[in-house]
């Protein structure tokens, strides 16, 4: 091996080595940011008036809950999970929550490796994961905490308005590569999707691609919902899929089989690409974890679901 001869190159090797830990660093940064945020809120919460609205099960107006809860998983849910954690922490300063994203697969893997309390997942556990959980001595209990629709987004300049599941399948399997074949202009479709750690990726695989078939190889696997939104807003020929909470005015949301994705169409089951957002724990949550999940399922937590653009369990 070549030996670096100067201090400069030694420093170089160091940064180079650092980069191998990219994903780890991403989590670290997110969790650090979460810690800082919750820490700052906790510090702020001491001086501000306690506005506990009696949502915890203890029935007292002053929270005496304490403990730490580690959460990791779905990138679709990460903003909502952060908002939950921050609000819950202002009401219960004794509870320290850390939230990290990365993808449902990341959260489930962390759960199976016993490094988190809750895994956020925008999909159900796969059979293989269930058996891995059993092997690891875990009893995976899934709690549905919100609902979501996977929306199909295109660039604002795109003339398309509606897309069917069949057309989507053909596009994402790579059978249709030009917009004119689905009623658009004559341009090559730029396929955007998530990486294989994403629950949304698995959801589209199950619902659209079909079992035994595969995504087109030309699909670009992006890191997050936000990355897909950014690329679609810049690229006239792009198509992508994101959670309902990520829709904004910089992109155009297609209706699917004539149905617009909204709270109502998800709740009455007419929107074809709706799904549950889950939190997975080892056994039924107890203690501080139970308090947290009850709070999420209560009015406070569900209000945040709606604020974040997702679908509450009840209207």
């Amino acid at each position, binding site marked *: 091996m070549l030996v670096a001869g100067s201090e400069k190159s030694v420093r170089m090797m160091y940064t180079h080595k650092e980069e191998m830990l990219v994903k780890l660093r991403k989590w670290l940064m997110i969790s650090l940011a979460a810690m800082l945020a919750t820490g700052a809120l906790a510090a702020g919460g001491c001086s501000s008036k306690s506005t506990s609205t009696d949502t915890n099960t203890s029935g007292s107006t002053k929270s005496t809950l304490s403990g730490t809860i580690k959460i990791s998983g779905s990138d679709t849910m990460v903003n909502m999970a952060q908002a939950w954690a921050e609000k819950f922490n202002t009401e219960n300063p004794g509870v320290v929550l850390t939230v990290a994203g990365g993808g449902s*697969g990341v959260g489930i893997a962390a759960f199976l490796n016993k490094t988190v309390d809750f895994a956020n997942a925008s999909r159900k556990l796969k059979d293989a994961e269930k058996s891995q959980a059993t092997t690891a001595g875990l009893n995976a209990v899934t709690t549905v905490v919100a609902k979501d629709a996977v929306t199909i987004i295109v660039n604002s300049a795109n003339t398309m308005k509606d897309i069917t599941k069949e057309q989507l399948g053909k596009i994402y399997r790579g059978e249709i590569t030009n917009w004119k074949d689905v009623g658009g202009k004559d341009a090559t479709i730029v396929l955007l999707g998530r990486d294989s750690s994403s629950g949304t990726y698995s959801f589209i695989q199950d619902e659209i691609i079909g079992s035994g078939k595969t995504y087109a*190889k030309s699909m670009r696997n992006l890191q997050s919902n936000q990355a897909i939104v950014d690329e679609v807003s810049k690229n006239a020929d792009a198509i992508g899929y994101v959670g309902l909470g990520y829709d904004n005015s910089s992109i155009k949301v297609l209706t699917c089989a004539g149905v617009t994705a909204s709270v109502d169409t998800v709740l009455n089951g007419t929107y074809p690409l709706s799904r549950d957002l889950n939190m997975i724990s080892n056994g039924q949550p107890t203690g501080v974890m139970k308090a947290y999940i009850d709070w999420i399922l209560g009015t406070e937590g569900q209000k945040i679901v709606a604020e974040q653009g997702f679908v509450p369990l009840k209207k």
Partner: protein
Amino acid sequence: MTVPSSQKTARKGRPAFNRAADAIARRSIWVCGWVAIAVLVAIFVFLAWNATQALRDVGLWKMLSGTDWYPTIEPARYGFLPSIVGSLWVTGIALLLAVPIGIAGSIYLSEFATGWVKEVTKSVVEFMVAVPSVVLGLLGLAYLAPLLATTFHVSSGLMALTAGLVVGIMSLPTIISISEDALHSVPKDLRQGSLALGNTRWQTIYKVVVPSASSGIFAAVMLGLGRAIGETMVVLMLAGNSGLIISSPLEAARTLTGTIAQEMGEVVSGGEHYSVLFTMGLVLFVITFLINLAADMVLERQRKRWRR
């Protein structure tokens, strides 16, 4: 150490003390050398150990020659070819950009630049090393990708070319600063001798200075190559991460490093996918090891030729 009680023993004691210090220093250096080698071997063993399951169940050849990368479907397909080809493209583009510019830049810095220009340029190059790759990735995403997309009339700027150019820019400072050191350490006598024999400044540089610094320059290029092939964040952000085996730099590609970084977090430790990713790491390790070995052999032959 006991303090010598008289002059006589002191005179004897000093060489003894020196000898002891000498022995200790020799021993420590020996230990340090072996620790470095042991760490390298340990890394290799660790990778191989974690890769055994995949090597046994999937098979090395099947992975190396597989053209499909679908790690999460049933049955999973673990083909390395898209990642290997993508890595080669990105690294190749990076070197095409960084080697000529880097060497030319180092020649300019060492032989032509003077005074404040030299100082400023050197500090800028030094500073370039300190720019985190995420920042370069963001700049590439915001400016370079759209620019290249419109220039080459492709639908998206997330492609091997974009990643390659940014990685090339990242390996520039490595190549420049180490080459500059090598050129700088060429003895003045050689330059003056060459000029005295009637060579022009330019002839002196390409006939005398660069050849005598060639081993250092070569080492710089190799380190730059190592930097390029190991770069992760930038390719993750800019290469597009498709599953294609690309035949042109204007297509979306995935690389070995990008694939490992993207998927390592989601795999269950001890699972097949986990083991496959370790195999990928092993392949990357072997590739860089072979590159370094080849570089060393080339250098050795060079040295022999110069000695003649």
